[in-house]
């Protein structure tokens, strides 16, 4: 239970911070417009060069600029989808754990049902029915990934609501809303933060997966997953097209994971957080 920041957490925080700066200031960092043809390399992607540090793609677009702008999309989706996930997951988890009984039973069966479907498949089904757009994507990712958070929060709530300080508050006549908001939620917060950090990397991967399958944010918006998908054709002739966005995904996922696990280690809780 020491409060000292460890190396893991620090690394994660720096990595994510850097990513956030790049994403916010994308217009300053990106050397070119990410959607315009700036290199005359139509149909024949060119490798890294002085003018195009990470090369150019089959439509003459600068890969570096696309990765930088892609960071913005990835972060927006990662964070916004996580907010949707948290809203649904924490609400269901708290309700289920606090009230128990029929409410718990019903909510958990719904959760089980959601868990029974492969996440990616479910997300694909949603995106196919709804029209792909930025808001659809983050909503869909949120809708399919709240289950693990709901379960962890429920377990935490169950254990917290048996604690003396909660019982005491209850004995003093505190209403359920106050118990949840003032006593249970703040104490469940650390675990929620960990879940959120780790979950964000999950949403990033899910977004990349959806984009790879052509169901992500529609073009011309640059997205890392779509960049890899488009690079597939040139895998043998222009491997850098897939390599650099792949590394970008790796970097972001690693950053969020380090942040999450580092925080977890610092809190040193009896945490047996199991991610999907």
């Amino acid at each position, binding site marked *: 239970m020491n409060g000292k920041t460890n190396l893991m957490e620090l690394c994660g925080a720096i990595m994510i911070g850097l990513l956030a700066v790049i994403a916010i200031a994308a217009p300053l960092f990106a050397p070119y417009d990410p*959607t315009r043809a700036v290199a005359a390399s139509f*149909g024949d992607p060119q490798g890294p060069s002085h003018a195009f540090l990470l090369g150019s793609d089959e439509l003459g677009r600068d890969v570096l600029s696309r990765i930088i702008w892609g960071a913005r999309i990835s972060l927006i989706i990662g964070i916004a989808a996580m907010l949707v996930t948290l809203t649904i997951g924490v609400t269901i988890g708290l309700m289920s754990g606090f009230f128990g009984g029929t409410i718990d039973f019903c909510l958990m069966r719904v959760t089980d049902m959601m868990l029974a479907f492969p996440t990616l498949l479910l997300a694909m089904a949603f995106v196919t029915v709804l029209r792909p757009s930025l808001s659809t994507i983050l909503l869909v990712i949120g809708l399919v990934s709240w289950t693990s958070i709901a379960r962890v929060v429920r377990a935490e709530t169950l254990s917290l609501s048996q604690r003396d300080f909660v019982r005491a508050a209850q004995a003093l006549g505190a209403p359920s809303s106050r118990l949840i908001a003032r006593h249970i939620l703040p104490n469940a917060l650390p675990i929620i933060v960990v879940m959120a950090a780790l979950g964000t990397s999950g949403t990033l991967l899910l977004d990349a997966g959806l984009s790879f399958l*052509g169901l992500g944010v529609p073009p011309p918006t640059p997205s890392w997953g779509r960049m890899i998908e488009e690079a597939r054709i040139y895998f*043998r002739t222009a491997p850098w097209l897939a390599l650099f966005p792949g590394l970008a995904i790796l970097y972001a996922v690693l950053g969020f994971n380090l942040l999450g696990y580092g925080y977890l280690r610092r809190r040193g809780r009896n945490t047996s957080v199991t991610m999907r």
Partner: protein
Amino acid sequence: MKALTPFGAALAILALSELTGCRGDSDGLDLPKTAKVLHLASVADVPSLDPAVGYDTSSWGFEQMIFDTLVRYSDAGVDLVPDLATQWEIAPDAKSLTFHLRRDASFTNGRAVVSGDFKYAIERVLTPSVRSKGTEYFRSIVGAEDFVAGRAKEVTGIENPDAWTIIFRLTEPDPIFVQKLAMPFAAAVPREAVDQWGNDDFSRHVIGSGPFTLKEWRSGERIVLVRNPHYFDPSWPRLDAIVQLIGVDLDLEWLKFETGELDVSAIPPAEFLRVMKTPKLKALAEHIVTLSTDYLGMNCQMKPFDDVRVRRAFNLAIRKDKASAILNGRAVPAVGILPPGLPGYDPNIDGYPYDPTKAKALLEAAGVGRDFAPTLWMRADQTEMTLGESIQQDLAEVGVHAVLKPLAWSSLLEAIRQPNTADLFSLGWEADFPDPQNFLEVLFAKKQFGANNDTFYSNPQVEKLLAEAAPVSDLSRRYQLYDQAQKLIMQDAPWVVLYHPVSYVIRQPWVHDYILNPMRPTRLERVWISAREGEQQTR
């Protein structure tokens, strides 16, 4: 033959030419060890071998090897050459055609091919219970409508004065009727074989007079043709057998080609650039500009595309050279609607140059605001998506922000045929016959609304020219009239013509005379195989 999406045309032709094959001949075919076998592969099974039924490139590829028609196209071109007819005359009024048959052709069951077999074949196509997709092509024969309606026992307009002569009489002049007789629909079919197996099972037990004959067809596994020893021309075919593996996707096909198991293969998009950059592989690639045109269609009944200025602006804004470059030369930039190589093609037609400034001015004049975001309906396919993004880029330069809408092929076709549904879409058209009518009338006449005229374009002047040109037999006059029609259509700009797809296949060094045709599947009777030098691989 049907609308093809941009680049889809090329793929479809690849699919047919995908008649590729694998080595390893000891697969229970009891062919002699020295047999020359061509190994091919395809993903999908052949839909049908029955010439009355098959209507796709894969079926036609086999049917034209198993059956003979009166006339056919030359190996590399679209000029008609004799098949079972040695000579033919077309009456000056283009209302009757007389064919004289060769007398030495016979079916593989030993019976001589006579004029009655052609009459029977066409009557079969016209029989409603056969559900042939070729019926429409022969309705113009005198008596055909009565036959289809069941009012007549035979088609009176097909006459057989003797066993070696056949005369077709038409209800109206049709100078391109002879082209319809080059389709497998009109191939000679022995009545006794159909009677024996029934209409549905004939496909599995086909008997024809062509250079090859069906030996084995295991659904989803393989189809094997062997040489027909009784073929009328003893110099052909040069192969002993053709083995086509089924259920082999493009990537696997490529792998099998690289190991030498297949003799001919399509080139996967991912490998194309590498093949072109490797001189040794490039030398083995065969290509041909297909008789097809890929285009962006604009629905002329939907706002703002009902304004010709908007349609012209789109024509000026889109860079065709870029689209072709993205396909790495698997396309020739288009200027007009008709593809080069089509008789009647006018090399001097005025296209639209790339001129974004003028495009912007036109859009402004038409009152199209900055918020104009048309939906580009297209096929969900990686190459299509890349092209779509390229078009999106070009349009963004003139302030139009197109939204891509990728769909499955069948859903796309269904959508664009509905009025007021798809405002902007990407499609292609491949010729059935080498005649401008097959493009201009089929795609731009009012009577094709809801069918092939997917831009819902109509212009009374064009209609008049099309009606005037259709019965004209004098080719220079005919082509002149169609040229006038094409020029009017280009001015009205219902299409942004993009490019003419180029079809590519790659063959092994030991495969010779594998000749691509711009309109039809490759004929395999000329193909021959030389000894493989050692274990030379194309890797």
